[in-house]
């Protein structure tokens, strides 16, 4: 394998240039998806069959089918049916599509975490006169947060990587650029190596943030006890 380190150095900035696109789409969609997922989790408890059926469809559709296809239909399908959508930029369509997509699996991550909060905590809140929403806001979500962090970070990293599908709408991010350069120069190893470095560093940073967050959110367990168990295991 004749790995050309000079080429790597030469090509690095041309790939890195697209990092802002990746980050913008990821953070925008991530934020919107978080909001949506919290709403979905709350709506999940509304006792309406129709609403639940709609939510189930939403969930199965967006987490089940490939994102490319979703974007494709969103961007091209809608544009063919409703001409106003022709003015939608590829970037906006990517953000909308990825938000919907991410909200579907993030909502499940959050629902799982919410389930982990002991029902007695909810009962205590209700008995103290809080409404269900208040209980969720002040008691359940804060306790679920610690549990949800690892999976939400997974989801976010997944989202960050999936921004490359926006290339199907002509929006070029780090990975799209990487593939394209690799495809034209046939120096896949070099280009992919650059991508690996960029994504790895990003993930490392996110991972550090994750650890900090988990520590910060961990107020419900005996930290000392936990430390002891580690040193024994």
């Amino acid at each position: 394998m004749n790995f050309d380190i000079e080429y790597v150095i030469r090509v690095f900035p041309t790939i890195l240039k697209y990092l802002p696109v990746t980050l913008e789409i990821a953070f925008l969609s991530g934020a919107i998806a978080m909001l949506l997922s919290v709403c979905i989790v709350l709506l999940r408890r509304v006792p309406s069959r129709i609403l639940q059926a709609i939510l189930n469809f939403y969930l199965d559709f967006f987490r089940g089918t490939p994102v490319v296809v979703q974007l494709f239909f969103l961007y091209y399908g809608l544009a063919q049916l409703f001409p106003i959508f022709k003015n939608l930029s590829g970037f906006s369509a990517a953000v909308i599509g990825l938000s919907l997509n991410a909200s579907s699996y993030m909502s499940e991550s959050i629902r799982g975490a919410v389930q982990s909060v002991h029902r007695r905590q909810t009962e205590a809140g209700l008995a103290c006169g809080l409404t269900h929403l208040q209980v969720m806001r002040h008691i359940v979500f804060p306790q679920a947060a610690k549990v949800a962090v690892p999976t939400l970070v997974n989801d976010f990293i997944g989202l960050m990587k999936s921004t490359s599908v926006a290339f199907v709408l002509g929006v070029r991010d780090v990975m799209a650029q990487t593939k394209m350069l690799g495809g034209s120069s046939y120096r896949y190893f070099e280009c992919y190596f650059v991508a690996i470095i960029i994504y790895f560093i990003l993930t490392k940073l996110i991972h550090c943030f994750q650890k900090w967050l988990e520590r910060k959110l961990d107020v419900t367990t005996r930290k000392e006890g936990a430390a002891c168990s580690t040193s024994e295991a």
Partner: protein
Amino acid sequence: MLDIRGLNKQFGGLHVLHDVDLSVKKGEVVSIIGPSGTGKSTLLRCINFLEVPTSGTITIDGLTISPEHCTKQEIYQLRHKSAMIFQDHSLFENKTVLENIALPLWSAYGYTKAAAREKAESILEMIGLADKRSAYPYALSGGQQQRVGIGRAIAIEPKVMLFDEPTSALDPSLVEEVLELIRTLALKHATMLIVTHEMNFARNVSDRVIFMNHGSIVESGTPEEIFLHPSDPETQAFVQKSVHRGGPLVL
């Protein structure tokens, strides 16, 4: 103040409460005693609809609710008229001691955050936990948790207090304090329903004692009637044993 009519509760096939009728007047302190697993906690939990009764009606302070037709709003209103101390304390695990007491005040009872804090501080003084103000529940001893639970409930100053074994984790001197507290609250016309296993406590605190067995109210009367002259044989047997155990302390 509190009126329960024909209350039934089933868990699947298990019939836990049988046609319970109970009226508590304003300012009355009623103790509920009875063997383990008889449905005492379930009764309290039904009163504020944490457990939806199978049938029957609950009336607190003029608001009547039955499981057949009750709106979310009505249930919230009902719960606003009562506060509960849980058998297992059930503190909010993500809140400090102070926040545990202050949170319901500002979020559900219209206090400003500052006023809620202030009140919580004063309650903490009262229950002797001012130094644990910023501790999280996991770092509290059993008795400390129980006291925070008590503090959280009394801070709300509800019409009706539902106490589920409020002194189980407390040492005798603290039990004495809770007794004092309940007497003070009674003077302020708080209505109280107290489940307890401590016969001395029941005897000293209550205007009326209720003996429950197998999900029904077997007998109800003044402490003297129940503890000294129980009419029902089941009550007799229960009280007998209770008093028997080890005999009275002799100084």
